[in-house]
């Protein structure tokens, strides 16, 4: 009971702080449709200034299971966990609809080394 009210107040706060422009029906549709690969890629490129993004949809098209290779200068000087936190934050909204997301993050320098 208490927990539910806590959750509710958190949700109210979230809704107020981050109003979503989509209406309920659209949200429902998104929730069942997963996320289009292009949307995910555009968001990553924009928010992390990625120099390279490689997404593989492993879900047979339902858009709920992705593997990602992400290269961004923003990763420089950060450990793995901080790098992945950046990614998670950038696509937090989409991650709620994705069932499985696996990622490999590289700095541009590290990516050059991997490619060789």
């Amino acid at each position, binding site marked *: 009971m208490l*927990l539910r009210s806590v959750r509710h*107040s958190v949700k109210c706060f979230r809704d107020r702080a981050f109003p979503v422009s989509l209406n309920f029906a659209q949200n429902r549709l998104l929730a069942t449709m997963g996320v289009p690969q292009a949307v995910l890629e555009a968001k990553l490129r924009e928010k992390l200034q990625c120099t390279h993004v490689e997404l593989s949809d492993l879900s047979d098209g339902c858009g709920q299971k992705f593997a990602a290779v992400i290269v961004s200068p923003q990763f420089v000087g950060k450990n793995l966990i901080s790098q*992945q936190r950046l990614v998670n934050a950038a696509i937090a909204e989409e*991650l*709620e609809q994705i069932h*499985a997301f696996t990622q490999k993050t590289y700095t541009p320098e590290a990516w050059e080394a991997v490619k060789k």
Partner: protein
Amino acid sequence: MFARRIFCQTARFLAAEAKHKHIDEMVKKAKVVVFMKGNPKEPQCGFSNAVVQIMRMHGVPYESYDVLQDEELRQQIKQFTNWPTIPQVFINGEFVGGCDIMLEMHKSGDLVEELEKAGIRSALLDAEPPNK
């Protein structure tokens, strides 16, 4: 009325604190703690299974919690670490990462080091060296 609201807010705050305290105890229950889907004998997800296999290779004793048995725990642990996915691995009470990070650490050798810091000797160190 006003007093009641304050009371309610305080109660809510304390309840939230108590929940996190509960998780705090769970992550410190053993040197290595894994929140996963299923249990080590029967992982219910490929990512959880990968972590189980890594732990097995390194011969690490660990405590595991099955989030599929407890939906509340599943949500709480995600909030606690601010990490959206399961599995989640803790070493010495510190969140180390999910499946991807464990795999990377395993490959790079960082995991052996990290385990050593926690006083656990990786079984891979004692394994026979690969044939050259």
